[in-house]
C-alpha cells in the first residue's frame, strides 16, 4: 500500500518481535501507525533472539516512525492489561490491536500433559481475550471506533496430528472474534481474524528438516510455495485500513489455496 493509510493511528502487536508479528509491526509502521511492539523475553531468549524486539523498534524509528518495545507474557492478566495501557500512556490512545502472540508445541495427544494444553490456551486464547478486552475498553471510552485483528490459522478449519492443543485455540480465536464483532460493532469497533496457511517462521522452523517439509507442503498449495510473514502482514494492514471499515466478523484466509486443496 502506497499512501500512509494509518497515519496518526496507534497499534499494539502482541508477539511483535518475530515472524508474522514482526512483519506486521513493520508493515503497520510503514503506513504511519505508532507501534507498541510486544515481546516475551523468555520466548525470544530460548531462540537466542533476545534483541529481536529492539531491532524491530530500531528499524521503525530509523525510517522515521514511532515505536516502543514492551515486554509482557500476555497469559498474565496484569501484564496483558499493562501492555495495552502502555499504548495509551505512550501515544495517548489505541486504535488497532493485533492479537498475534501464539505458541504451537507439537506433541502426541496420547502423551500430552494437561499442563501443555493449559499453557497453549493461556497464551493463545486467554492472552487474546484479556488484550482484546482491555483494548476494547479504551476504544469504547475513546468513542471513535477501532480495529481488533486476530491471527487465527488455517488450523481453525483443519486439525493437525500433533496439534490437539493448538488447533482448538485457533478456532476459538475466530469464534471469539465473531462474538466481539457483534458486541463491539455498534461501537464502530470491527473485529476480524486472518487465517494464515503454512508460513516460514520460527514456529515452524523449529522442526528439523523444515526446508524439506516446506517443499513437500508446497506441492499441496496451489500457488506453489509456503508463505513468508509479509504475505500475512499486508492483509492485516488492509483490515486495519479505512477501506476495510465494513469488514466485520470475517475470517480472511491467507493460505495460497491450501485449504480448498486439502479438502
Amino acid at each position, binding site marked *: 500500500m502506497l499512501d500512509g*493509510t494509518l497515519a496518526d493511528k496507534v497499534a499494539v502487536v502482541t508477539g511483535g518481535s518475530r515472524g508474522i508479528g514482526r512483519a506486521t509491526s513493520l508493515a503497520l509502521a510503514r503506513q504511519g501507525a505508532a507501534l507498541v511492539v510486544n515481546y516475551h523475553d523468555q520466548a525470544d531468549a530460548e531462540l537466542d533472539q533476545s534483541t529481536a524486539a529492539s531491532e524491530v523498534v530500531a528499524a521503525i524509528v530509523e525510517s522515521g516512525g514511532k515505536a516502543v518495545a514492551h515486554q509482557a507474557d500476555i497469559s498474565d492478566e496484569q501484564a496483558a492489561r499493562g501492555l495495552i495501557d502502555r499504548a495509551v500512556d505512550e501515544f495517548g490512545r489505541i486504535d488497532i490491536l493485533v492479537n498475534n502472540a501464539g505458541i504451537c508445541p507439537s506433541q502426541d495427544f496420547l502423551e500430552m500433559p494437561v499442563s501443555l494444553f493449559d499453557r497453549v490456551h493461556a497464551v493463545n486464547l486467554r492472552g487474546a481475550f484479556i488484550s482484546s478486552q482491555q483494548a476494547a475498553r479504551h476504544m469504547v471510552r475513546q468513542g471513535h471506533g477501532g480495529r481488533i485483528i486476530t491471527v487465527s490459522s488455517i488450523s481453525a478449519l483443519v486439525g493437525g496430528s500433533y496439534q490437539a492443543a493448538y488447533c482448538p485455540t485457533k478456532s476459538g480465536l475466530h469464534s471469539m472474534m465473531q462474538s466481539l464483532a457483534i458486541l463491539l460493532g455498534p461501537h464502530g469497533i470491527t473485529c476480524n481474524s486472518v487465517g494464515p496457511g503454512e508460513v516460514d517462521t520460527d514456529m515452524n522452523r523449529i522442526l528439523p528438516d523444515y526446508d524439506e517439509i516446506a517443499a513437500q507442503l508446497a506441492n499441496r498449495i496451489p*500457488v506453489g510455495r509456503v508463505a513468508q510473514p509479509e504475505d500475512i502482514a499486508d492483509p492485516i494492514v488492509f483490515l486495519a485500513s479505512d477501506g476495510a471499515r465494513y469488514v466485520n466478523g470475517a475470517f480472511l*484466509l491467507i*493460505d495460497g*489455496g491450501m485449504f480448498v486443496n486439502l479438502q
Partner: protein
Amino acid sequence: MKVELQGQVALVTGAAQGIGKSIADRLAANGARVIYADVQYEVAAESAASQSLGVAMAMDVTRDDQVQEVMDRTVQEYGRLDILVNNAGVNTLEHRVTIDEFPREEWDRLLAVDLTGLYVASKAAAQIMRSQQSGKIINIASVVGIVPLRLQSPFVAAKAGVINLTRSMAIELGPYGILVNAIAPGSTLTDGTKELFYGEGGKFRDSVQELLNHIPLGRPATTDEIAHATLFLAAPESSYINGHVLTVDGGWSAGYMREF
C-alpha cells in the same frame, strides 16, 4: 487505501452502475486500465468517461460470442488481461415469493446471468491469463451464498454456486499463477436496494429495521466499501490469498445479535 496497479488491465462486468461502477472506478483510480463491460453500453460509456483510464465495452455475459469479442478486443488493444471482476448479476424485484410459487422463467433468467454468465466470462479470461501465467479473478458473490434468505431462491442458489466455483477455480488455476477469490457483500446501498428497502418508496421499507437489527454495524454497506475489498484482492498485497471468500457484511454473518 492506495495500491499499485499501474500498467495492469482490468475488466469489470456489470460496471455501468452500482457496485460494479464503484469497483471499476476504484481500480482505475489506482492506476489500472479498466474496461467497463456492461449490457447497458450507454450507461457504461458514461461511467467510464469519468475515469481517464476507463473504457466501455458492450457485453452481455449470457452471450458467449459477445464475451469472447470483448476479451479479444481487450488483448488486441491493451495487450493483456490481469484482473477480471465478475460482478454482473441480477436479482428479482417482482417475484419475492416462496419456491412453490417461483416462476421457472425467472429462475432461468437469474441463473443464466449470476452463475452461467460468471462461468462464461471466467472461462474466456482464464484462457488469456493461463497463457500469461498470471492473473486475478474476483467474483462478487453475496453473503446470501453463505447464509440463506427467504423469497429469492435462484439468487441464493446462484451465489452459493459462485462461492464453491471460486474454490474449485482456485485449485485448478493456482498452478498457472492465477488467483481466484470471491467477495461476499452484505446488504449494500444501491439503486436496486433503494427500490426494495432503503428508499422512501421501498417495497419492503417497513422491514428494513428488522434487517439492520442483524447487522452489528447497523447500516448497509456503501458500494465503495465493497470496491475497497475488491481493490485489496486485486492488489499485489494479497498475492498469497487464493480460493477465499471475503465477507464484507458489517458482521451480519458472524452470528446473532441478542440482548442476553
